[in-house]
C-alpha cells in the first residue's frame, strides 16, 4: 500500500462571500504525477494555496506526509516546508539576488553549510534544471520567461524535496519550451522519486507527462483518473475542454 502524501478531506472554503470548495476530497500517493484541472474560478489555485498552508479553509482537514497542515505549530510547519518545493506561476524570483543566490537561498536559510558550498549545490540544481553555467551570475530581469521558470524549478528543488507543487508551469512559454519543461519535470520526478502536484491548463502537459488528472468543478472533484478515463465522463465543460485539442486523432466528441 503506497503512502498517502497529500490528503485533503471534506474541505470547504468561501472567499468574499462566494463558496469556492464544498466538502472537497483529494488524495495523492507517493510517486504520482498529478494534474489539477478545471475552468477559471473553480478554485484550483485556492486548493494549491490551502495545501501549502498559505490559505486556511473554513472547514475540513489537510494532511501532508500524515501531518496536519492546519494544526501544526509554526516550527512544525517549517519542518514540513523543507519537505516540499513550490514553483509559483511567474517564477517569483527575488529580483535583488542573482540566479545562483536565488537558488541557494533555501540552503542558506535551512542548512548549516558554508555559503560557498551552498552556491556550488545551487549550480548543481541549475544544471539539473537545464540551465547553462553562464546564467548563474545573471539577474532574474535579464532572463527569458522559460529560463525564469527553470531557475524557479531549481530553487524549488534546492532542498531535495519529496513533493513538488507547480502552479501552471508551462503558462507563458512557447510550445517548444513548454514541451521541454514538461519533459524536464517528468525526468526529474522519475530520477529523484518526486511526487508532483501541478495545476495546469495545458492539454499537452496532460497528454504527455501526467499519471492522473483531477478535475474540479463547482467546488467539488468532478472526476479523477487517466486522460482516457476522463473522456468518458459526460460533462459539458470537460467535453469542450478536450475538444479544444483536435489533432492526434483523439475523437473527443464521440461523434
Amino acid at each position: 500500500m503506497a503512502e498517502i502524501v497529500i490528503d485533503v478531506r471534506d474541505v470547504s472554503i468561501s472567499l468574499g462571500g462566494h463558496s469556492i470548495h464544498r466538502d472537497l476530497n483529494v488524495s495523492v500517493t507517493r510517486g504520482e504525477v498529478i494534474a489539477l484541472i478545471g475552468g477559471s474560478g473553480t478554485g484550483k489555485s485556492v486548493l494549491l494555496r490551502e495545501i501549502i498552508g498559505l490559505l486556511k479553509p473554513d472547514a475540513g482537514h489537510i494532511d501532508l506526509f500524515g501531518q496536519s497542515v492546519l494544526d501544526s505549530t509554526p516550527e512544525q510547519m517549517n519542518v514540513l516546508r523543507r519537505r516540499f518545493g513550490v514553483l509559483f506561476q511567474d517564477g517569483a524570483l527575488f529580483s535583488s539576488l542573482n540566479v545562483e543566490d536565488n537558488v541557494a537561498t533555501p540552503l542558506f536559510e535551512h542548512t548549516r553549510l558554508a555559503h560557498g558550498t551552498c552556491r556550488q549545490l545551487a549550480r548543481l540544481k541549475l544544471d539539473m534544471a537545464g540551465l547553462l553555467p553562464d546564467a548563474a551570475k545573471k539577474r532574474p530581469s535579464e532572463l527569458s520567461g522559460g529560463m525564469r521558470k527553470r531557475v524557479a524549478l531549481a530553487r524549488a528543488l534546492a532542498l531535495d524535496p519529496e513533493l513538488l507543487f507547480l502552479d501552471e508551469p508551462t503558462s507563458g512559454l512557447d510550445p517548444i519550451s513548454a514541451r521541454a519543461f514538461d519533459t524536464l519535470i517528468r525526468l526529474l520526478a522519475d530520477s529523484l522519486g518526486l511526487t508532483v502536484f501541478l495545476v495546469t491548463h495545458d492539454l499537452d502537459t496532460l497528454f504527455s507527462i501526467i499519471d492522473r488528472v483531477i478535475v474540479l468543478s463547482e467546488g467539488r472533484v468532478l472526476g479523477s483518473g487517466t486522460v482516457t478515463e476522463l473522456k468518458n465522463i459526460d460533462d459539458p465543460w470537460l467535453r469542450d475542454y478536450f475538444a479544444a485539442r483536435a489533432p492526434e486523432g483523439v475523437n473527443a466528441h464521440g461523434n
Partner: protein
Amino acid sequence: MGVTEARAYYDEAQGALIVSGDWHAESLAEWPVLPDSPSHIIDGAGVTQLDTNGAWMMLAAAGWQVSDPLPELRAFQPQHQAILELVARHSGSTAMEPGPLHEGVLALTGRGTLVMGKHGLGLTNFIGHLSTELIYLVSRPSQWRWREFGAQLNAVFVGAIPIVFGMLFLLGVVFAYLLGSQAQQYGANIFVVDGLLLAILREISPVIVAVLVAGRTGAAITAQLGTMKVTEEIDAMTTLGLSPMAVLVIPRVLALLLALPLLVFIGDIAGIVGGMLVTHEQLDISYYVFMDRVADVLRLKTLLVGLFKAPIFAVFIALIACRMGLSVARDARSVGEHTTSTVVQCLVAIIILNAIFTVMFVRLDI
C-alpha cells in the same frame, strides 16, 4: 526523523571511502576529515538516505573532480547509485569559484568617475531627445497635455506650500535669532534686517526649496515613471502612438519650471515673517520699523537673483528625475536604486550650480 548523521572514513587497506548514515543537506554541517588524495572506491553499504545534495557532498568528500572518471560505487542501493550518477552528470558547472575581488580605493574612484561620466552623457542625450520633441510640439499646440500639466502643477506646487512655508519660517527664526544675538553686542540691531534679507532671498530660500522639491517631487517622479516602465505602461504608450516625452516628461518639466520660482517666493515671505517675529521679541524692533527698513534696503536685484536660480534648479531636477525614471530596468530593485540616485544627483547639481551662481554674481558685481 531518526537522526543518523552522515559518516565517512577512509579505509587505507581497501583504498576506499566508507560512507554510511543519512546524506542530505541538513546532516552535513561538519565535514569528515579525509585524506587529500582522491578515493577510487566509495563503499555505500551503510547509506540509509541519499538525496542530490548529499550525493554531491559525497563525491566532493571522495575528492572527485568532474574531469576524473567516476569512482567505483560499491554496494550502494540501486536508487542511491542512480542519484550519484545523475549528480555526477550535472556537476560540470559546480567547480569552486574564486570569491569576488575586493576593490581598492583607486578602483572604486575610477568606477565612480565612470558612473558620473555616464550620467553626464545620459543627461545630455536626454536633453537632446527632449529638445527635438519640443521643437516638434511647438508647431502642434493641440498635442500639449494641459490636463497632465495641471495635475502635476497641483502635486508639485499646491501640495508643497505648507512644508515650504513651515521650513523657511523656522529657518528665518533661527537665522534672525543667531544674527540678532551677535548684532546686539555692537548695538547694530537694525542691521539684522539687512543680513536676514540678503541671506534668505539670495541663498537660503532658493537652495532649501530646491532641496525640498528634489526630495519630494524628484523622487516621486522617478518612482512613478520607473514603476510605469516595470509594468510596461511606457511601452504600451509608445505602441499606441503616444510619445512618453510629450505625455509624461514635458508636463512635469513645465510644472516644475513654473512651481519652483513660486515656491521660492513663498519661502522668501515665510523667512522674512519668521525673522520679523524674532526681531520683534528679541531686539524690540517693531513690525513697522522692520518693514520700513525692508523698504529702505531691499533692492529688486536681491529678490531677482534668488528667483533667477529657481527655474534653473527646476529644470535640472525635472530632467534628472525623468531620465532616471525612464531608464529603470525591469525589476523592483532598480526602481529603488534609481530613486536614490535621482535624489543624490539632484542635490549635487543644486549645490554645484549654486556655487557657480554665487561666484558668477560676485564677479559680475550683481
